[in-house]
Every structure is written in structure tokens, then in C-alpha cells.
């Protein structure tokens, strides 16, 4: 099977993931942190992604994944 490139950078995808290892880890962290944000702010998934990507404390990979997930959501993916 051909290896594919991460949609957010030039690296190859991690096995079984649509992202490379760094963006894949960022997505996992985003999922993990969501429950804390939801409890803290009573916030939904999309608002959470928008809020995270607007924070200057957020890492670049985290912002990129958040944007990507939002776009996928808009496109109904």
C-alpha cells in the first residue's frame, strides 16, 4: 500500500491515521481536552474548536488540526 502525505504538512501519515505523527498527536490531545473545556464552559465541539484555534497559547499543530476538523465538518465529511 502506498504511504500518503499528511493533509496538513509534508510528512507521511502515521499508520492507521489520516495525519502524520505530530498532527495525529495534536488531534488526540484536542479530543482529550474537550471534556475539560465542555465542563468548564458548557461548550459544544465546534465552538470548542473555534475557541482553541483562536487562542495564542494553542500549538501550531493543534490549530491546524482544529481548522481542518472544522472545514471537514462544514463539508459534511
Amino acid at each position, binding site marked *: 500500500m502506498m504511504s500518503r502525505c499528511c493533509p496538513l504538512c*509534508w510528512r507521511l501519515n502515521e499508520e492507521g491515521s489520516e495525519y502524520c505523527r*505530530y498532527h495525529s*498527536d*495534536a488531534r488526540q*490531545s*484536542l479530543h*482529550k*481536552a474537550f471534556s*475539560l*473545556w465542555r*465542563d*468548564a*464552559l*458548557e461548550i459544544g465541539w465546534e465552538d470548542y474548536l473555534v475557541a*482553541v484555534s483562536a*487562542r495564542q*497559547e*494553542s*500549538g*501550531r*499543530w*493543534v490549530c491546524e488540526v482544529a481548522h481542518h476538523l472544522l472545514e471537514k465538518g462544514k463539508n459534511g465529511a
Partner: protein
Amino acid sequence: LITTGKEKSDLKERTLVVCEKPTAARRIAHALDDRGAPETYDEGGVPIFIAKRAEDELVVVSALGHLFSIAQDGGKWTYPVYDYSWVPAHEADKRQARTKRFIQAIERASEGTTRYVSACDLDMEGSLIAYMVLLNVCGEDSLDEAKRMRYSTLTERDLVKAWNEMAPNLDYPQIEAGRTRHEVDWLFGINLTRALSLSLKNASGTFKTLSIGRVQGPTLNFVKEREVEIQGHVPIPFWVIKAETTIEGGRIPLDYAKARIDKKSEARDIVSACRGKEGVISTVSTRRVEQSPPTPFNLGDLQREAYSKFRYNPRTTLNAAERLYLGAYISYPRTSSQRIPPSIDVRGILEGLRRRKGYARLVTSLLKESKLTPVQGAKDDPAHPAIHPTGAVPGKLTGVDARIYDLVCRRFMASLGGPAVRDNVSAKVIVDGEDEVHAFFLKGAKLVEEGWIKFYQPYVKEKDFEIPRLSEGQRVPIAKLRYLERYTKPPARFNPGSLLRLMEEEGLGTKATRTDIVDTLFKRGYVKDSATEITDLGFTIVENLERYAPDILSVEMTRSLEGDMGRIQSGEFSREDAIEKTVEVLESTLSGFKAHEASIGSEISGAVTREEERSSYLGRCPRCGDGHLRIIVNKKTGKRFAGCSNYFKGTCTTSYPLPQRGRINPTGRACGECGAPIIRVTSKGRRPWELCIDINCPSKRGGSNDE
């Protein structure tokens, strides 16, 4: 006095004294000459000093750091390379051409000498420099007649003492360890650098020196791992509750007992429950705290403190400290020690410092003490004490040297001071909410005894916040009550000082080499800015090494080699064994590397291109809106300007002139007035300045941007 140096001497013995640098040679010759005025002559641009000491003649010569270095034995610019020899440095590296004259001068000056003294700095490098000079210039027999001077300052007193108490032989374990370190580092450096550089060249046709070594690898890996944490950080919200109270007309901050509240609703409820209420002081406690004086500096501590106080990078601090050492104003700076041994005449040093105007009052107060014992740190160095002033008062020092000298002197004085004593006061304020009781804390501190702090001003910040006398049961108003949203932050990037500390803690490199390693990371473009941010290139290098040569990033491997070096110094391990071990590691690493050279090269080539694109990208074109402004260099004139990427499509001709001097860094920001990109220009010896690249920008009319 200039003489030919060829005059026959009536004196009994001629001794060749080998020093590390010309400045040190001058000081040593002056200190050892009976009249304090040695003869000086010039041998092809190299100063030679003839000192008379009793009935002996001392020919004091200087090296220029290492005069001999390692070079490959024949062969091509490829890898692996395991055959090498020590050769004159000018033969190994054209940039070292000046060293040729020093070798020739020493060769001539050593004619007729029968005894030899190594007077280079007392460390591995110094011992090796003198050994190589004696072995290769004066011949192997000279080593049997060679002695070693041991000193930590270039003051006359210390140098004469070192001469009178010379070690009867060269310090061979140090020399052997130094030689091994050079050879091991050369083997790693040459092979890995060639492997990386050739992978890039073969993949893209581009040549770029991409160095990596056994210390550089793990250090770069630290920076990369930190970047991974930063770029993968998801901030978590939390809230803090702040309030103020007014006592005796003064406003005092109050902190809520729970420092961090995880839910916004909870924070809001607390604030509404306490709003408009009064609090009652339930307890008041005072704790007396003693703060011990700081230890005298070792090199790492000095570099970190200089970064923290003046933002000097480690190289700037080291260079200044070396100049001060060569001027005999401070002791040898490349030391790990935080201790001042009893053999050092502390009172004598202070007497000397008293002559300096700014220190007179402080020193006088110290000299009143019957006993002066500096506080001793945990770290020690068998060769040198902690960095301390010598007591020799410099004339006019300016800039970096003046600041570093002041830091060293004040730290030394502070280490002799008593503890600083503070009373920390904490009062608990209870507010009766509707459903539950809430607690706030009111905190203050009062300096009771200044102790060492007065000697270390202005380098220590006062954290005192005095509060009025409080009593239990006292009622206090709660004002300015609010909850503030906060977010967890990613870890900070390393600065050059914190990176040095980590290297020290992890046992990577030595006090002499760490600064160079950090410098190299910048020079190669692996990291950038003072925040030591890893570049795409640095990141890609680490990723590839992780995959194909993980040993090179391993702290354990480097630490084990450092341990071997230590064991060579104590005679438990041999140079040959260390080299054999190095070759074994390299053989397995390089074979893995070679097998994947093409893919490594293509990844690195991609990173180089991305890095070039990033550093030339200034921002969006304000005229056409969809083009990108990039720095372009005119191939004919060599001048640079900013041009729109749509020029090549024929749709936009926007261009801006750029400053022709200094390094241009894009800031990523656009001018608020005209929308053109703002750049930062960094030139040597100037503060970086920012400007909008449009020379017709309205912001530039009628005054400066700062107005």
C-alpha cells in the same frame, strides 16, 4: 626593548615557557622577570619575551589556542573516515593560517632551550596545547624535561607561586583525556557531517554544511522535543478570583484560597456570593525566613545570570570573562566550581576592591567582620576555584566587560554576606457567603535584615510588600472582586542560558565546549532567535536521525563517552579503547545512514527549500491582494528588494526597496496605515529596528513611528 633575541646569554639555563595566548605570555613574562621588565622581540609578527629569573633565562612564547589539529589521512571527501593524524592547524584548515607563524616563532625561540614549562590554562585544552607544541615543535625528548605551572589567576602573586611550586611533569592523564576528546569528537563530527551534507548534495545538487556531533545531536533533540510540546499544546481554561481590601487607607490584594477554579460557573458563583460582603481576619501568622547568600559563580551560573540580567548570550559572557581573566582582573572563568578554597586570600582581594569607588563602602563593611567565609556551593572543580575578582583594579572598563566584572565582584561580595532575613505575614480572611464560607489570603513580606542583598544590588529584586499590623477578628472590606479567565500555557522555549543548564544537568559536553555547541546550532540554521526556536531544517535533521541513527541523539551514549573520558583522566580507561568504542558506534550508525541516504537527502532538501521560502516571505501584497511579497536578490547588482509573486503572471508589478545592510526578518505583521509588511532589520552593533517597507507610507510623514 626590542632585541634580536639571538644574543648569547651568560645565564646558566634557557627554559622555554609555553603559554596559551599572547596576552597571557606577556603577563607571565612580566611576573617571572626579576625586574618585572622582560625583553621583548618580534619573531615574524609573534611576540617573544625573554625574562631573567635568578640565573636562568626564560623564553616565554605563546600559542594561539590550538596550533595542531586533526586531519584526515588522504582520501576523498566522503564517509566513513577512520584514519587521521595530528597536523599543524594551518594545514588542516586554511582559516588557521596565522598559526603557522606561531609554530615557526616557537621553533626559532626554542633553539638552545634545555628545559620546558607548560604555562597554558590549567585544563584539558591548555594541557593538550602545550603538549602538542612540545611534541611537534621541540621534539619528543623535550617532554621528559617538561614541567607544569598551575594557576587560576594571572596576577603576579599567583604566577610566581605557580612557578615556585611547579609540578615536576606534564599532566599526562589530562593530556590523554583531552586528546581522546578531540579525536572522538572529530570522528563523530567528520563522519556525521559528511553523511548529512552528502545526502543533501546527492539528492538535490545543493551543497550546504550540515553538521551534527555527539553533543550537538542530543542538544538539538532537547530543542526539538520542547517544540513538539509547544506545537501540540492544547490550552485548558481555568479561573482565578482576585479581590482587594483597604486597610489604613492602603489597598492590599487578596487571593482566593483555591488558586485555580476549573469551571466558569463556580468562579461566577463565588464572586456573587462574596460581592459587597465584609471579611473577617480569622488567623494571622508570621514566619521568619532566612535566605542564604548565593554561591560564587561557576561558568554556567555566570552565563545564566548574565543572560537573565543583561540578555547576553553565553558566548558574549564567556568572551568578556576571558578578557577580564587575561587582564588579571578575575580568576580563570572556565570552571565548574562554586567554591572558594581557604587558600584564597579573601581579605587581600577585598582590600584591592576597596580601591574601586563603587565598592568602597560595601567592602569596608565586609572587612569589619572578624571572619570572612564565602558560602560554598555543591559543585567543585579540581583545577580551579569559583570565578572571583583578583583584587587588581581595572582602569576604565566599558560595555559588556564592565557589566560582567561588576556581576562577578558583587556576587563574590554577596557570597561573603550574612543571610537575608524576611518576615512573611499571611492572614486568612473569611467571607460568609450564602451557602458556604469562602477564604481569601492576604500576604505581605518585610525585609528584617538585608544581609547579602545589599552587596548584590541591583541584581536582586526586592519582593517585599509591607502590610499594616493585622489582628484576628478584624473586619475588612472586600472590594474589586472579580474572576479572571486564564489558560494553561505551553512550556517556554529554551533560551541560551536554560539550554546550557540542561546540558550541564544531563552531563553533555564540558564547561569549555557547551558554549560552542549552542553557537553551532545557530550558525547552522538549526535554531533561530533568542528563544532558541528550532527551524524546519533542525527539525528535519532530528527526525531523520531519530529514524536512522538514533544513537546520535542519545544522551546515554554521549554520557557514557564522557564517563570514559573521566576514566581516562583517572587512568582506568585508555584512549585506544575509547576510539575503538567510537568506531563501533559509528560503523553501525553510518551503515544505516548510507542505506537511506536518498530519502534522508530528499527530506532535508525539502526542509532547506521551505526554510528559504519562509525566510524570504514578507506577507501578502497590499496592492493586488492575492500575491505574496518576497525578498528577491537582483542577480546583476546583488541588491535586494521586495517583489510581488504575481509579477511572473504579469498581473502585478508591485515592488519595494529594502535596506541593503543587516539581516531582514519578516515579522508576519502588516502596517496599520498602508497594509505593507513590517520587517525587522538586525545589524551588528545596532538594536534591531522595525519598519514598514513602503517608503511612501503615511506613517513615515511628519515624524517617527514612535510618536
